[in-house]
C-alpha cells in the first residue's frame, strides 16, 4: 500500500474507498454487518464512555422494525431516531430539531405516531416500529399516502415528508375517513418550513378517498 492509497482520515470504515458520502458509508456498514456502536461522527452521545452495567438494562436487544426482527446494540441513553438511522440504516427517518418540536422523526410505534428523536430505544423493545421504509407494498408500489402526497405536490424541499407521511398513515389507520378539520388536527405535530401544509392536507384527504374507493369499489370523484 502506497501513501496515496492510504484511506482519507475522514473515512471511518477500514478499507472503504475514499470519497464515500455519509449515506454510502451508512449503507455500506449495514451491508457488511459491521458493528457501528461507536460511530463517532454523530457526536459524543453515542461514543461517550458509559458506566459499567450495574443492574440496568442489557444493551443487546431485539427490535421489531418494519416486520423484521433486528438485533442491535443500544446504549441506555440512545434515542430511537439514532438507532434507526445510524445502526439500522433506516435513514428515511429524519432528525430535524431533535427536541420533539418539528416532527421530521415521526415513526409509528404500534401504529401510533411518535417522535423517534425523543423516545429511548430501550423503551420500545417488544413494540412494532414502522418507519417510512416499511410502508411500500410487496410489489414496491407506494403507500396511498405517499402517492397522494406526490399527486398533491406535498413535498417541496422534502425534509419533513417522511414524518408527514407517518402522521397521515397513523391518522388513516385509526380513522380512515377523517374530516378535513380532523386531518388538520392530526397533522399538527409536523412542521413544514416550506409551508406546504395545505398541500399535505389535500394529500391526506386524497389518500382517505383512495382508501375508501378501494374498499367500496366506488368510482366517484376523489
Amino acid at each position: 500500500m502506497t501513501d496515496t492509497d492510504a484511506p482519507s482520515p475522514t473515512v471511518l470504515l477500514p478499507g472503504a474507498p475514499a470519497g464515500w458520502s455519509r449515506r454510502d458509508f451508512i449503507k455500506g456498514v449495514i451491508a457488511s454487518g459491521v458493528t457501528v456502536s461507536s460511530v463517532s461522527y454523530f457526536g459524543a452521545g453515542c461514543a461517550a464512555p458509559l458506566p459499567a452495567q450495574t443492574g440496568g438494562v442489557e444493551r443487546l436487544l431485539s427490535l421489531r422494525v418494519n416486520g423484521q426482527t433486528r438485533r442491535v446494540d443500544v446504549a441506555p441513553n440512545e434515542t430511537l431516531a439514532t438507532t434507526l438511522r445510524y445502526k439500522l440504516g433506516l435513514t428515511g427517518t429524519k432528525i430535524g430539531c431533535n427536541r420533539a418540536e418539528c416532527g421530521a422523526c415521526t415513526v409509528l410505534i404500534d401504529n401510533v405516531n411518535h417522535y423517534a428523536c425523543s423516545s429511548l430505544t430501550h423503551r420500545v423493545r417488544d413494540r412494532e416500529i414502522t418507519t417510512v421504509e416499511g410502508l411500500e407494498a410487496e410489489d414496491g408500489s407506494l403507500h396511498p399516502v405517499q402517492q397522494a402526497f406526490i399527486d398533491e405536490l406535498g413535498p417541496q424541499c422534502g425534509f419533513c415528508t417522511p414524518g408527514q407521511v407517518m402522521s397521515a398513515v397513523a391518522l388513516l389507520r385509526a380513522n380512515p375517513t377523517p374530516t378535513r378539520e380532523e386531518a388538520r388536527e392530526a397533522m399538527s405535530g409536523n412542521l413544514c418550513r416550506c409551508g406546504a401544509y395545505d398541500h399535505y392536507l389535500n394529500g391526506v384527504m386524497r389518500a382517505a378517498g383512495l382508501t375508501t374507493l378501494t374498499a367500496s369499489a366506488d368510482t366517484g370523484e376523489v
Partner: protein
Amino acid sequence: MKDAMAGFELYQPTDLDTALESAARFGEAGWLLAGGYDSLDWFKDRVKIPEAVIDLSHIGELHGIREVDGAVEIGAMTTLTEVSRSPLVRGRFQLLADAASEVASPQIRNAGTLGGNLCQDTRCWYYRYGVDCYRAGGNTCYAAAPDAQNREHAIFGASRCVAVSPSDTAPALVALDASMVVRSVSGERVVPADNFFMEPGVDIERMTVLEAGEILTSVRIPPTWADAAFYFEKVSDRNSWDFALASIAAAFRTDGVTIDDARVVCGAVQCIPRRLRSVERYVSGRPRTPEGVDAAGAMAVKGAEPLSYNGYKIPLVTNLVKRALRSL
C-alpha cells in the same frame, strides 16, 4: 456539546415496588422517566445529568383509567391521548378531556402522560438554559430584570422566582377537586390537587410537593363535579406545541339561572395553578348578570403584579373569566 446526552444507567422496573426501591436508592441522583419528551430535552442540554433513569412505562398498575367508588382514578402513566379520548373521562369530566387534548402536539400527547404533565418543570428559559438562578440554587432571577424577556412569566404570587406552572391539566384537576396519590417505600399519601403544587415562597427549587424517592402513582377525581357545566380555554401563540400564555379551567353547578357553586382556576399566570377563590365566592349563589360577569372579571386580576412584558395577561385573564361565565 448540545444534543448529546451524558451516560446514565437505565432501569426498567415492571412493578411499582421495584421502582420505589430504585427511586429511594438513587434519591436526587435518580430521574423518573414518564413520557420522556421533556426529560430527554433536559438530558440533551446537559442541564440535568442523572446517574440513573427509572423508566416507569413498563409498570402496568400505573396505566389505565378506572372507576373506584364513584371516583375516576387515572394512572399517572396514562397518556394524554388516552385521557382525552376516554369515554369515562369525557362522560363525566369533560373539562379534563378538553385540557388534555390541548397539550402540545398529537405525537407529544401520544407519549406524554398525565403524571408527567403535572410534574413537569417550569418553562422559564433562563432556568432551562441552565443559568444559576434562584430556582437552580443561585441568587438571582434573570427573568424579573427590567429588560428581561418575561412575556410568558407570572403576574401573581412571585417570590424571587417569576416562573409559571406550564401544565394544562393541572388547572382542570384543581377545579375538579382531584387528589394526587403519592407512593414511596414508606407508604402512601394522598395530596389534594390544590396543595400538590409548590409555591416558590415555600420551596423555590421544586414545582410540586414530591420528595426525592416519591412517585405520583395516580390521580383521583371525586364525583363532586361530575357532569357539571365546564369551560376550558387555553391561549397560546401557536395552536400546536405551545405552552399556555394563560388558561382557564372552570366548573359550575347551576340551575340555568343561579350559579350554586363554582371552581375557577387559571394556568400559566403563577407558579402554581391559580384558584380564583374571590371569583368563586362572588358568583356562587347569584344569578348571572352582565354586571356580575364584569365584576367577576375585574376581581380575577386584583393584586396582579405584571413584569415589563407580561401586562397583557391582565386583560387576558379578565376576559377568560368573563368568557367562562358567559358560556353558561
